[in-house]
């Protein structure tokens, strides 16, 4: 394959994945068929199958992409000079996220809902993502100097994830604001 062709092929792959990712997140993975993806991406069905052998492979690539995106997002959203500031900044950024008209909940939790069978290979990506997020929160908690940082890290993660889920169920952003207040109270001894 010449370089020009391989570059073009790479671009096509990206276009398919971008289109599929947008549709999967907005409408749900199960609700979006391969036909809808090829139509939206403006490509032939065969082209899609040249890049992804099956819809499952496309779904796995989507979840891997989400994992990379949200891990980066989380690291970048934790801005501030102190560990406490960083943690609270995460709550502020999640609030902005919830206010976005495109927000349709946590993509990993949504993926679990659509693939309830825990032995499905895609579920490994959710496990790996939540493991990394958990570690990130425990590191932040440890940096505060809290002795029982493992427990603090888990509590903060439950708070932020719970407020996100609760807010999404109720269609409200006030839960994340309240969760921030609770987190700020929990972090007071280490500020």
């Amino acid at each position: 394959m010449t370089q020009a062709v391989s570059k073009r092929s790479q671009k096509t792959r990206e276009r398919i994945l971008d289109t599929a990712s947008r549709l999967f997140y907005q409408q749900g993975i199960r609700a979006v068929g391969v036909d809808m993806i090829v139509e939206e991406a403006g490509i032939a069905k065969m082209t899609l199958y040249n890049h992804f052998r099956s819809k499952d492979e496309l779904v796995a690539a989507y979840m891997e992409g989400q994992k990379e995106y949200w891990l980066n997002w989380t690291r970048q959203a934790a801005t501030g000079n102190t560990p406490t500031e960083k943690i609270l900044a995460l709550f502020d950024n999640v609030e902005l996220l919830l206010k976005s008209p495109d927000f349709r909940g946590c993509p990993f939790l949504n993926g679990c809902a659509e693939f309830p069978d825990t032995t499905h290979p895609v579920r490994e990506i959710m496990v790996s993502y939540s493991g990394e997020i958990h570690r990130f929160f425990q590191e932040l908690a440890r940096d505060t100097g809290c002795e029982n940082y493992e427990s603090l890290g888990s509590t903060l993660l439950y708070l932020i994830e719970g407020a996100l889920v609760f807010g999404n169920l109720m269609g409200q952003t006030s839960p994340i604001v309240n969760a921030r207040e609770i987190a700020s109270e929990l972090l007071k001894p280490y500020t």
Partner: protein
Amino acid sequence: MNRRALKTRETILDTASRLFLQFGINSVGVDTIVAQAGIAKMTLYNHFKSKDELVTEFLEREHMKIISGMEQCLAGTRNLPPANQLLAVFENFEAQIRRPEFRGCAFINSTAELSESDHPGHEVIQRHVATVHRHFLELAVKAGSPQPEILAQSLMFLIHGATASRCMTNNPNVGQMARETARLIIQENLGCRI
């Protein structure tokens, strides 16, 4: 509705509920439900106008099931102080999410799957969440919390965050951590040990 019709309706709902919980709402079509329930498609539509109505009824039943479980737990612990009753709810929750066949919360899962914001199921979901919240708030008030709303909300976040974590990590021990965190939150809010 006569008895036989009522029984048919129940059979359809039982079958649909089992399938929705096991495979997700969007993965299960009306054809699968009628085949598994051993009824004609027309019979299903005599009882439920559409799949949306079936999904809404499924959520309504899940709502009643979970709330009656919670109320039973509270009735069984009515001689305990309210703070311990709050903790008992988390013990009950722990037992529920520890089950190996746990496939996530029907309400969280449906929110993920019902992408149309005008689906009638959303009303049931919000009513369910509000009912759990009200129970927490009543207990927080009874326990003499100086900030009952904060306590109730903290516990709501905890229970949702732990459910999310249970789904994503597939770790059955999440409930245990959630229960211990609940204990700390309750103690902190009430300024007492339980």
